[in-house]
């Protein structure tokens, strides 16, 4: 009952000083906006990395054997030198893995490079992502075709000069024309287009559709790597358990092939989507560690502004407080009135911030492929923080108001 009265008063006070109130809550507003938006964006990034990035770059339940790690964090000079001394991966390695792996799994190889592609009418596309890969590649990467077909084992073994294009590459080379059956040249070598991949979109700003994929044993192989060498051996298992087992088997097969003694370290890398995510986890941990500090700064500044505004407000209303005390307001009545006003003010700022943060999240969602959505916990957190900042900021002004001597306060102008 007393709180209802205090709320009524608080809102009438806030309403009567709209502009001042709006400025007072700016800091809390910014803090809440920031909190809601950042939590939403990090959440979206996480989901994106886990679901999209992991699945598209690495594939589900996939282990990749590489010579050197695909993602490196400030490697030391000695580590770099060690990587350079490692033997390269070969087709023989891949064949051996395929032959000896007991867990049912798809084994493929891939090699990548950048290069130029020339269309039938002489258009040249630079900076195309060239891939020489086994036929399994499309299944491992969960790629669907929008037209044509992929190549098969026979074509791979025969080294057929066929190519599957990315959606962007196909469009730029052929426009509206049907590319199937046409010939393109990759660094002078002719390839017959047999298929086009469905649009993949971009990942971290890099187009996933500007590419040409040819069989592992096709002439593309020597355009991306020296003879007999592959970048990656990719093993896709049926499920997570099988993947773990495949990883274990892969390691022993590779160690045996390399003739490593039990005390020697691996001279190759085994990577899974989860490993590659480690770098992202580090980034998101840094974000999660930094942004409470930023939100905290905004809220502290916001709290200080509210405290000052409330001090001014208390001073302006000295007479009113004197009257209230004269007619029976106790200390706690005055404290309650100031605290409720301060908390209500702050909560309004937080509420505006929550709305604005949602707007921000929607903008990010519209402009990027990130599946950004505002977590309810972030909104509740922002609201609770808003009230908390208001209460803390109102404490000193409230106590000051409550301590006013009614005789002095009644004499105030």
């Amino acid at each position, binding site marked *: 009952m*007393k709180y209802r009265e205090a709320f009524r008063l608080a809102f009438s006070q806030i309403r009567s000083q709209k502009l001042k109130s709006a400025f007072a809550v700016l800091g809390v507003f910014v803090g809440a906006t920031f909190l809601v938006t950042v939590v939403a964006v990090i959440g979206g990034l996480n989901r994106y990395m886990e679901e999209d990035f992991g699945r598209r770059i690495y594939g589900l339940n996939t282990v990749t054997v590489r010579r050197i790690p695909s993602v490196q964090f400030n490697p030391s000079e000695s580590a770099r030198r060690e990587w350079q001394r490692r033997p390269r991966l070969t087709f023989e390695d891949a064949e051996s893995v395929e032959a000896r792996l007991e867990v049912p799994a798809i084994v493929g190889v891939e090699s990548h490079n950048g290069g130029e592609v020339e269309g039938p009418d002489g258009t040249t596309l630079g900076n195309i992502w060239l891939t020489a890969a086994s036929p399994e590649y499309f299944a491992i990467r969960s790629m669907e075709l929008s037209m044509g077909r992929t190549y098969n084992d026979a074509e791979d073994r025969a080294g057929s000069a066929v190519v599957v294009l990315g959606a962007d590459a196909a469009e730029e080379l052929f426009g509206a024309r049907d590319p199937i059956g046409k010939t393109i040249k990759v660094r002078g070598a002719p390839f017959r287009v047999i298929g086009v991949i469905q649009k993949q979109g971009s990942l971290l700003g890099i187009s996933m559709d500007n590419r040409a994929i040819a069989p592992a044993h096709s002439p593309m192989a020597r355009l991306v790597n020296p003879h007999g060498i592959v970048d990656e051996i990719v093993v896709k298992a049926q499920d997570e358990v099988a993947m773990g087992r495949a990883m274990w088997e892969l390691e022993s097969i590779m160690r045996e092939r390399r003739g490593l003694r039990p005390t020697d370290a691996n001279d190759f890398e085994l990577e899974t989507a989860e490993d590659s995510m480690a770098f992202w986890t580090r980034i998101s941990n840094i974000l999660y560690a930094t942004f409470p500090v930023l939100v905290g700064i905004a809220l502290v500044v916001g709290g200080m502004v509210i405290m000052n505004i409330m001090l001014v407000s208390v001073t302006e209303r000295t007479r009113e407080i004197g009257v209230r005390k004269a*007619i029976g307001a106790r200390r*706690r009545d005055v404290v309650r009135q100031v605290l409720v006003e301060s908390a209500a003010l702050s909560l309004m700022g937080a509420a505006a911030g929550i709305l604005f943060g949602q707007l921000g999240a929607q903008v990010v969602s519209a402009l990027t492929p990130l599946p950004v959505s505002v977590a309810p916990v972030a909104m509740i957190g922002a609201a609770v923080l808003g009230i908390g900042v208001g209460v803390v900021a109102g404490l000193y002004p409230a106590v000051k108001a409550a301590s006013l001597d009614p005789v002095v306060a*009644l004499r105030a102008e």
Partner: protein
Amino acid sequence: MNWDDHAPAGDIVIRTRGLTKDYVLGAETVHALRDVDIDIERNEYVAIMGPSGSGKSTFMNLIGCLDTPTAGEYWLNGEPVAGKDDDQLAHIRNRLIGFVFQTFNLLPRASALHNVELPLIYAGESASVRRERAERMLDKVGLGDRMDHRPAELSGGQRQRVAVARALINEPAILLADEPTGNLDSRTSEEIMDLFGELHGGGQTILVVTHEPDIAAYTHRTVLLRDGMISSDERHTPTRGLAGARPSSDYQRPVGSAADVP
């Protein structure tokens, strides 16, 4: 000193014994009030007079429980006030004292009705009780048709009526008015003093702090303060107002006679 022997009995609403207030200003001590003894009975209508600096504001603040004495005792409605803390004093003010100020001191953003309800909020009354009693009180002071008006929409006299309604809402033991007509023209002053007269006729104990003899003329007793002490205290027949038409022999006897002290 022990004043317990002086605890009032019967109809004495205000009793002070040795009431003293000193202010320390730097190295100097100002004796605003020295050893004031006074008894005020229920339904008395008293004017507190004196030049500025005489201690009448200090006296009013002490009687109104807005301030605490440096020394001495004060019983309000038979209960000792000395030694109470801030919140207990707030409770006493809420229940036993109705203030009327020279500058009205209404809340500018609140309606007349809400202003009158205010003491009831601090008394913890429910919204429906508050509303009903405040409406009744505004009717009583003749503002039944102005309840939703804000102070700025009311004339000075109407504002002071709202203030009187607010002062009376908790049926206080004393109505304490500090220069209630100081901001009003003479015609409106008369209206307010007539209202006081009616309230007095209804049994209300009223103290009016004033420097105007014209206002004191409405009352039945005039206490004159000088240099923090009572220099005279006389009961008299009101010469003005409604009450003036109703002289009472009760108020003819001199103050300080044996009959006053139990």
